[in-house]
């Protein structure tokens, strides 16, 4: 049977397998929180929230499932045409072409060869490595830093700036407040509970979105929200959807037309001024440029007074309601807490700027429970901070930026990240960005890790075409995302739970450091990000520079010991590394300063000694710097401008606005491939909330499959007919996995429900160039064609 041996070599060998990991319980952590994993026979069999987590996320079982999902990338794979014909082969077939398994050696050889070819042929701007996305937490296996660390050793690359979450706000806020504002500690919840008379959530769903954190969320906002609810004090939600948080608080719901918030705020501001409710002393002492804004508010500069009546016409909220809001805001201590949806829209910069202006007119910034906050919905902003030591982490090897060790300047060129498709379509063309003008580089290759741009980027059809400009696409991930399906070389990475790492607990509170211990052995041929990039560096002759001679555990020990030194200087009680690793975590004390923190209290106390980081040292309601830029789409004070399209806007081509909120059962697109989907899908598709009237007009019943369409794309969804959404608005959450019925074809129908098939891909303005993921109008109809099967998920037919 020699032939048999040749065609069917044995898969079994003598000897009993040795369990690589021990049975028992392991503490580890994720974007969804810290958890205890039960391991049996080398398998992860159960998960429960960490005992110290006050509000574990219901998504944790999905985290476990993601490890064992049939959508795992199991082996290195290369797109067939690419394997046969090399870079640039049949790029139009990406997404539809076959993939062929190759060895790790062959995959890395192809990757390294191409990195070198592109560098030698096209120079330092040939490779786009602005790879963005919600990579897993962990100070070592930070795949994006590791990738750029390798690329810095190789030569250079094109980097990206900013993020999709807060693109507009993080650029405008430094001009206005002198800080990023969106990623800063808020006036803490105990103070809000004690001192706020009125809590306003503007475009936010904090019960939903606080589930996740960029590092390990401590979920400290949940006890805060529960305590506030117990006081019985009023809460208002301003949102086109009566969202889960509104229901949790039993709050008042005001539903403006989407994208009209600036007009609505102007109407409130006008009322404050006309009724003398504004705090002129605060505006004089702490703000700059209200005098330049006021003529606009009153209509002296443009002939249009921004009265409540004027605003009501635009935003659809009655003038009396706007006036009442002005009086209530001014009538007690009011916290204006805004989500980020407001600024992911055309002219998104204006909305938080106007919110700050409104809060400045109320004069409560820096007082306990008053002012504004841009992170109450995210990573538990307002969770009281601890006196803690901070971990260092792996760097990309670029030049450190003064004062912000976590930011580096790397790369031969940088683009604002949401402009990637503009870059691909228009190499060499000028673009504006926050006062600078630059040219789009001519990129030929990309290496993407820890992200899924085929979920987070806008206008999918346009993107699919633009993506063809890449001669080579390398994607390193642990699952077959839509981005992996549109790649040439696909490298299987481990999940966080198949390796060791270390991370901070509580994005703002920094309450603990947690040992993210390996739960199970790597599955299939998955390798750790650190090992993959170390091996590529080795093949580039730079292994020592990459690893500095350190193993995984060497680095983790080093990061901890850096923190330990700080801890010792602060007299914190911290064990040595071995004791810490054994214990699994070290906690830090939350002291009085943390429990009573009021944002901008220092500034209010002494504006001269504690000036803001703006040119005037004050809150800039008028910005000379922005004025100097002379942008037509970002004037020097908050201004209402019509977005490119909106519900009932001038020349609106479609009758409905599409709200694209963050989902309850996912982190953007992450975990869409898990059984959590059963908690939200309708007819196996993304749910589409539609108002009862809008549904009736179109003959749509609850549970129907509907087609949503505009002039950019089309998708299917499952209808949820409800009165918890205002008429004229439908909602499909962002992050549904892109599932084209005809991959690569023009305007393919998405069978599952990727709402970015419909959204507009333009910059918020020349200032921030942020994405406009909430700018979309469309129409919807009951789908009557032959229903295409959803095929993105590997759920077997008979399971």
């Amino acid at each position: 049977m020699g032939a048999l041996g040749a065609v069917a070599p044995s898969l079994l060998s003598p000897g009993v397998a040795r369990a690589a990991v021990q049975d028992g319980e392991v503490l580890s952590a994720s974007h969804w929180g810290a958890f205890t994993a039960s391991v049996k026979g080398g398998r992860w069999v159960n998960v429960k929230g960490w005992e110290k987590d006050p509000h574990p996320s219901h998504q944790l079982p999905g985290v476990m499932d993601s490890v064992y999902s049939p959508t795992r990338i199991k082996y290195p794979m290369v797109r067939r045409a690419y394997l046969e014909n090399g870079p640039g082969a049949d790029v139009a077939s990406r997404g539809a072409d076959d993939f062929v398994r190759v060895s790790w050696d062959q995959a890395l050889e192809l990757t390294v060869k191409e990195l070198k070819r592109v560098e030698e042929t096209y120079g330092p701007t040939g490779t786009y490595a602005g790879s963005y996305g919600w990579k897993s937490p962990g100070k070592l296996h930070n795949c994006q830093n590791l990738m750029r660390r390798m690329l810095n050793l190789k030569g250079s690359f094109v980097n990206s700036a900013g993020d999709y979450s807060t693109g507009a706000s993080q650029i405008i806020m430094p001009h206005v407040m002198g800080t990023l504002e969106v990623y800063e500690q808020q006036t803490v919840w105990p103070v809000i509970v004690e001192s706020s008379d009125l809590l306003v959530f503007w475009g936010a769903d904090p019960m939903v979105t606080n589930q996740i954190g960029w590092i390990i969320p401590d979920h400290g906002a949940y006890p805060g929200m529960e305590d506030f609810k117990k006081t019985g004090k009023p809460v208002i939600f301003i949102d086109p959807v009566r969202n889960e948080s509104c229901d949790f608080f039993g709050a008042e719901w005001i539903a403006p037309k989407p994208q009209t918030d600036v007009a609505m705020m102007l109407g409130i501001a006008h009322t404050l001024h006309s009724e003398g409710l504004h705090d002129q002393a605060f505006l004089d002492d702490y703000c700059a440029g209200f005098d330049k804004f006021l003529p606009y508010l009153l209509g002296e500069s443009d002939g249009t007074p921004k009265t409540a009546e004027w605003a009501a016409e635009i935003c659809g909220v009655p003038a009396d309601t706007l006036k009442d809001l002005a009086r209530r805001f001014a009538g007690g201590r009011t916290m204006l807490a805004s989500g980020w949806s407001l600024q992911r829209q055309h002219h998104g910069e204006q909305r938080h700027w106007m919110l700050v202006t409104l809060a400045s007119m109320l004069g409560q910034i820096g007082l306990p429970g008053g002012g504004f906050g841009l992170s109450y919905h995210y990573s538990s902003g307002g969770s009281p901070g601890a006196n803690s030591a901070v971990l260092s982490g792996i760097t990309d090897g670029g030049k450190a930026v003064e004062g912000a060790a976590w930011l580096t300047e790397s790369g031969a060129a940088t683009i604002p990240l949401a402009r990637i498709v503009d870059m691909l379509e228009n190499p060499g063309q000028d673009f504006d960005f926050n006062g600078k003008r630059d040219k789009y580089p001519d990129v030929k290759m990309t290496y993407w890790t820890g992200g899924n741009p085929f979920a987070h980027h806008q206008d999918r059809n346009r993107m699919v075409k633009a993506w063809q400009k890449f001669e080579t696409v390398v994607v390193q991930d642990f699952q077959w995302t839509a981005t992996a399906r549109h790649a040439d070389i696909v490298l299987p990475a481990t999940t966080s739970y198949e390796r060791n790492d270390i991370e901070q607990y509580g994005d703002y509170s920094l309450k603990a450091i947690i040992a993210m211990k390996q739960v199970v052995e790597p599955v299939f041929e998955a390798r750790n990000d650190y090992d993959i990039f170390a091996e590529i560096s080795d093949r580039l002759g730079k292994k020592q520079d990459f690893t500095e001679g350190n193993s995984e555990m060497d680095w983790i020990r080093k990061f901890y010991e850096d923190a330990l030194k700080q801890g010792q200087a602060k007299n914190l009680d911290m064990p040595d590394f071995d004791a810490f690793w054994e214990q699994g975590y070290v906690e830090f004390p939350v002291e009085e300063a943390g429990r009573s923190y009021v944002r901008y209290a220092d500034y209010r106390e002494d504006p001269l000694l504690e000036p803001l980081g703006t040119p005037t040292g004050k809150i800039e309601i008028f910005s000379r710097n922005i004025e100097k830029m002379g942008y037509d789409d970002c004037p020097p004070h908050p201004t209402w401008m019509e977005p490119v399209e909106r519900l009932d806007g001038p020349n609106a081509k479609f009758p409905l606005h599409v709200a694209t909120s963050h989902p309850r059962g996912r982190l953007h697109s992450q975990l869409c491939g898990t059984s959590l989907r059963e908690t939200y899908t309708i007819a196996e598709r993304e749910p589409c909330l539609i108002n009862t009237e809008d549904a009736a007009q179109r003959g749509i019943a609850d549970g129907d499959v509907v087609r949503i369409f505009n002039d950019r794309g089309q998708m299917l969804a499952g209808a949820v007919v409800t009165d918890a959404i205002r008429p004229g608005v439908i909602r499909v959450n962002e992050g549904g996995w892109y599932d084209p019925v005809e991959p690569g074809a023009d305007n393919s129908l998405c069978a599952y429900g990727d709402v970015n098939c419909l959204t507009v891909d333009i910059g918020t303005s020349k200032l921030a160039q942020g994405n406009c993921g909430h700018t979309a109008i469309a129409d919807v109809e009951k789908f009557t064609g032959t229903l295409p099967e959803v095929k993105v998920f590997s759920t077997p037919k008979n399971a």
Partner: protein
Amino acid sequence: MPVAEAGAAPPEESDLPAPAESDLSDGERAIVYQWLAGLFAREMSLETLSAYRAAEGVALLKQFGAMAALAPLVEQFQGLVASGQRVSAGDADLAGAYARLFLGVGGRRSAPPYESAYTSERGLLFQEASAESQDLLDELGLHVDESFPEPADHIAVQLSVMAELARRAEAAAGEPARTLWRARQRAFLEQRLLSWIEPFYESCDAADRSGFYATAARSLVDFLKADGRRLRDTA
């Protein structure tokens, strides 16, 4: 140490039996199981396709082709082998089909080759079926070779277990021991493979564009069922 000796001399043409499934000896059944395991373990490499073109390979196929259950598969195989010239295209076609069906590339239109995917509540890999398959390997004093980083409920591993159990029956000294090994084959076949092989085939049939693996899965189902009947009669 591989369980099958790759270097053994090829059998003479006259030695090859052409029996119906019911007449197969345990040793012959072990060969069929190992062959089927190899078919689903990996993509077919150029070397594998070449091996089927060599005299021994041709003889092997002929032997399998005599079995009713395997005849359609062997016929397809012979067509593939005979198509000759474009060997590398054939190789890549099958590799692409394999990846789509069995390596997750095809998403929902795929056929995960793991019992867990069909028998666990949430359609996941590495579930109870995987643990139980691993327990049996431990019991047999075997483990999945490091060169095959797959869980123990992978179809190729389960088929290899059947091959091993059949070999042990063949090698057993005396009828009582042989009966015992046959009973274990029957139990493993019924509890494991037959519990999920039909839905696995249906997934292959629905998703396979090449047709090759759908045919292979159909032949597999037919052979397993026939073998199940045989074991019921003899074990």
